């Protein structure tokens, strides 16, 4: 009985989706999604294979179908003349807390891996629009840093005005937020709870991972018994919290760690080895320059600020050369916002690396495109202008890596979502007053 009703529900949902999708398509006769587009007469900054002056891009079904000085496209394709302006991949912000309606920290327990940021995602938040107008097309929305192990991230595309589920990055890999240092020990220490010290921090983290090992073992044993045909095998109790951590240990969730101090980075590297998981990226990582060799050797990326410093004790040794010094030691470096102010001008933040340590134009641009795409785990689909990738693109007024670069048009999946020349908000899908 239960099964049947579920099937009916599933079928109903499929029908509803189809119906809604066609309704949406009808309502967007003007939109360019699904149409062929050619952007011509642009300085194409590919990130992976240099700049193409007077270049063109052919977009088919939301993907980049061709890039070059000339492209073969059907005559029916809509042409956007970039007027000799710069064209870059959409910016990717690998550390953001926008669109969560202040539900950033479930700060009631230092271990909350079962929190799903998707459940808090407020897709109507204007911060998504304002970042879009700054050229951001993809963001990793993370849990905050109150907990040693926070929740699981959601990856969004900044399709402002689209339905909620259309804004979720399809099939993005799972990421979880770990933290360290001052924040967890302050939050729980101020309540006379564990952790109130850095040793407390790491003990809490280790304890949770040990429990996850036990949980994983119980389930492995059970599954083994079932496989052997043991009909008396009883399944262990499902525990969302430990299930999530077990998936970390199984390598199914990427670990993103909020961390400032170099010594803590080394401890986290050791902890990851102790339990056999991999760290995808150190976030903030303001002292990465002190241990860049070890970070590089473990294939860990950093998502850092360009020049923030001094806002707390663990940010006192921050230097604006951190990004470039770490990069030269082989660390994959992203510049991120962690801010609904700075995510509107990450291009300027990246440009600062050209000044502090002499990053090349391509290296600087990579720090807000391909490198953060790797951190998010979507570098095979976004982050550069290459055939087969999503057509997430920005046409710039001014040189993007300067104080003067301002997006004029932002496309996501081949569809224009922001156009500076339009009146009102400049949005194409979101209509004011709706």
């Amino acid at each position, binding site marked *: 009985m239960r099964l049947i009703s579920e099937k009916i529900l599933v079928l109903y949902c499929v029908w509803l989706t189809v119906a809604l999708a066609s309704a949406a398509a009808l309502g967007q006769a003007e939109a360019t999604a699904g149409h062929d587009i050619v952007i011509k007469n642009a300085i194409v900054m590919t990130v992976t294979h240099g700049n193409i002056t007077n270049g063109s891009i052919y977009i088919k079904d939301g993907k980049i179908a061709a890039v070059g000085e000339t492209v073969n496209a059907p005559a029916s394709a809509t042409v956007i003349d970039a007027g000799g302006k710069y064209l870059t991949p959409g910016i990717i912000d690998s550390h953001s807390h926008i669109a969560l309606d202040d539900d950033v920290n479930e700060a009631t327990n230092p271990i909350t891996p079962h929190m799903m940021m998707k459940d808090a995602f407020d897709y109507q938040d*204007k911060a998504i*629009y*304002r970042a879009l*107008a*700054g050229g951001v097309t993809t963001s990793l929305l993370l849990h905050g840093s109150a907990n040693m192990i926070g929740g699981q991230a959601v990856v969004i595309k900044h399709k402002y005005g689209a339905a909620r589920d259309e804004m979720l990055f399809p099939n993005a890999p799972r990421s979880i937020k770990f933290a360290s240092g*001052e924040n967890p020990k302050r939050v729980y220490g101020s309540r006379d709870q564990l952790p109130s010290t850095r040793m407390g921090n790491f003990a809490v983290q280790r304890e949770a991972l040990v429990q996850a090992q036990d949980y994983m073992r119980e389930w492995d044993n059970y599954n083994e018994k079932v496989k052997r045909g043991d009909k008396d095998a009883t399944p262990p109790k499902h525990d969302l919290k430990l299930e999530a951590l077990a998936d970390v240990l199984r390598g199914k969730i990427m670990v993103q760690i909020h961390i400032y101090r170099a010594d803590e980075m080394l401890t986290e590297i050791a902890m990851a080895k102790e339990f056999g998981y991999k760290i995808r990226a150190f976030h903030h990582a303001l002292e990465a*320059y*002190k241990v860049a060799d070890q970070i590089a050797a473990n294939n860990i990326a950093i998502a850092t600020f360009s*020049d*923030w*410093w*001094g*806002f*707390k*004790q663990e*940010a*006192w*040794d*921050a*230097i*604006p*050369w951190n990004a470039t*010094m770490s990069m030269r030691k082989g660390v994959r470096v992203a510049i991120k916002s962690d801010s*609904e*102010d700075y995510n*509107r*001008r990450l291009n*300027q933040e990246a*440009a*600062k690396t*050209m*000044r502090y*340590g*002499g990053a090349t134009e391509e290296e600087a641009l990579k720090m807000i495109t391909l490198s953060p795409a790797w951190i998010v785990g979507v570098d095979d689909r976004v982050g550069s202008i290459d055939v087969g990738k999503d057509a997430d693109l920005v046409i710039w*007024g*001014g040189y993007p*890596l*300067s*104080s*003067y*670069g*301002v997006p004029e048009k932002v496309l996501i999946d081949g569809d224009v979502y922001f156009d500076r020349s339009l009146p*009102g*908000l*400049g949005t194409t899908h979101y209509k*004011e007053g709706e």
Partner: protein
Amino acid sequence: MQPAISFLRSTKCRLFASLGLTILMVMGWAGAQDKPVVLRGGKVLTVTHGVIDNGAIVMEGGRITAVGDAGTIHVPAGARVIDATGMTIYPGLIDSETQLGLTEISAEQTTNDLVELSDEIMPHMHTAEAFHAESALIPVARMNGITNAVIAPESADTLPGQDSFIQLAGANAPEMLLIRDNAMPLNFTGDQRRNKTGFEKRKFPSTRMGLAAQLRQAFLDAQDYKLKWTDYERRKTDAALNKDKDKKPEPLAPKRDLKSEALLPYLEGKKMIVLAAESPSDLETAVSLANEFKLKFVLNHISHSQPVLDYVAGLNVPVIVGPIYEAPKEDERYDTVYSLPAQLYKRGVKIVFASYSAHNVRNLPDQAGFATAFGLPYDEALKAITLNAAEIWGVAEQLGSLDVGKTANVVVANGDPLDVKTDVKRVFIAGREVPMSDRQVRLRDEYSKGGQE
């Protein structure tokens, strides 16, 4: 007529400006400039008289003694000549609101001297008395060409205390504090309300009417206080004149009230109020309050006053604008605040920028550059962090441009001062070259073993 200039031309402001001049002349830092310096070659952005390609500048005795073409400039005997070919030379930048010297590590309360929260009316707080000359933040800002700044208390009170105008180099605090108590913020942005706790725990003033009433009372108290002293002085004079025939006892001096005392120069129009508001209603309330007591003022922030910019222009006062990074309101276009400087400029309002920061003072020029992408002419953007600021703060005879006779605050960079990519190579303050080193450079060099450029 440009409002700030008319302000400067007023007698009171001349007094104010000459006070600044006196102090600047007295100050040398750790001794004066010892020998003349010539920067030759490079593009000179004078701010007042255009750009000189392949220009030169001569600094002697802490002042600029010549500005001109590299080919024809006279090199004084014994001068140190620096080749600035390929460089851009411009005046030291002025940040019109910072918390430099009032904080070290934001989250560490013991390092903060930002604002007193025990009362909203604290005009007797002097930032000059908390200013920490040895702060690690000052060289960080200085290395990016910021040579002068206003130090203001944080804006949590309506009257949080008095500003100082500093030079970012000097042997000690007195040398760096060019003008103490140069101005006083009056904050009316709504953030000063004591309404952050639950309703039952609120204290006065928890509303805007509370804030306004409290301010009005404070200024009335100061007026009464002044009358009391005037009366006392009169009776004292009378008593002295009639000492022999009148056997009355000496009049008693009124009790000193530091708060009222601190407000007097502002009530008398001798010093300037920095009037902060964001929205049109707060702005108009604050302005009428200021007019009620005939305060001399400049405006601060007004980030959300776009609907009343013509009214703002009609006030004929300069505006410290932004920061332009202030988020627009929920239903506003993304660039509503970015374009505010251009909107004000179009209406003839003199604008200046401020970092409103301590750690990020070095990024002051980025904001000016960004504003040009939203319509502010480049020359005005540069003026907003140099000459306009000098004019507003009454120091335009000494600072804000590369002109003969002015203090030799000069920056040499590898490009456009307003671009984020530009690297500052040399900074001169009162003719002396500042060491291009700070805490961050030392850490960089320590961890890159031998240093890197």
